[in-house]
């Protein structure tokens, strides 16, 4: 599939958009409903945000080659800065969010694209967008085994 921008740029834009929406939700919910108990920033939550971004990237921009180290750097910066900007975490918690978010994101990305690489070479390649969504859902379900592990 032809891409207009590089996979890394697409990934960066997707992840920023997803984390912005999640951050806005947390800020607005915290202001309007003070007694709301927001989900913890544990592995399943970080995996959910990562997988939504990966699925969004594939659906909007298509499936392309990966730069793992650069992806990790993008994820670390995005998770750290945007969590800090919500005002709901301290600086040290933002650093932990950056580190854990980066690792979780990288693991999700490797698994996500490994599965998609195989699917895209087969008959499912005609339905790549659906395959991306299904892959993301299945990986998130798998991440539930790590509920409670987090910041």
């Amino acid at each position: 599939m032809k891409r207009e921008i590089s996979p890394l740029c697409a990934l960066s834009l997707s992840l920023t958009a997803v984390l912005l929406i999640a951050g806005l939700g947390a800020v607005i919910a915290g202001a309007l409903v003070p007694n709301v108990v927001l989900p913890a920033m544990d592995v399943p939550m970080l995996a959910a945000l990562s997988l939504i971004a990966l699925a969004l990237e594939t659906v909007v921009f298509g499936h392309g080659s990966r730069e793992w180290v650069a992806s990790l750097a993008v994820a670390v910066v995005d998770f750290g800065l945007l969590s800090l900007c919500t005002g709901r975490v301290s600086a040290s918690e933002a650093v932990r969010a950056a580190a854990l978010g980066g690792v979780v994101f990288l693991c999700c990305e490797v698994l996500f694209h490994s599965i998609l690489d195989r699917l895209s070479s087969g008959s499912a390649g005609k339905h790549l967008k659906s395959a991306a969504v299904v892959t993301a859902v299945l990986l998130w379900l798998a991440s539930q085994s790590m509920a409670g592990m987090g910041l």
Partner: protein
Amino acid sequence: MNRKELAWSAGALVLACLVLVLTRTAMASTAERRAAQEQQAMMETLLPGGVTFTPETYDGEDENITAIWKSETGYVVETVVDGYAGPIRQWTGVDESGSVTGLVVRDMEETLGLGREALTDVSFLGQFVGTRGQAAVGEGVDAITGATVTSKAIAKGVSSAAAYVTGADVSTSATEWGG
């Protein structure tokens, strides 16, 4: 990624940060006002008859107690006790005689579908209303199915709150695991 794309990515990130900070700033006064209103309403619910809730300093030995508010009819005690996945912060209303008048879990990180049910399980939380002194799972209090540690932690918080008013001794050991 070429320079143009790098600029797009960096620009998007900066814009996202700005949006979050500006939203937070714009909603700060609303957040403060709503938090105060919600706190007052919640405390009035936990402690019927209470109107004014004045923070009090706690200098006792119970490490579970983190804050206390004194009112006309009793106290609202905030406790933080370690649950299964993280600390559980709860408010317990206790009248002057040491009887629990209300309980609400304010914050927790427990497992979705298990310990997290304690947020809304009225039948579980209602067991503590009217108790005096020690509240213990298995001794008059039924735990939430599949969430024994969470249940024990909440019971420990209630015991600490009641003990503050009655002056009873309370164990501040870690929440026990197992049945």
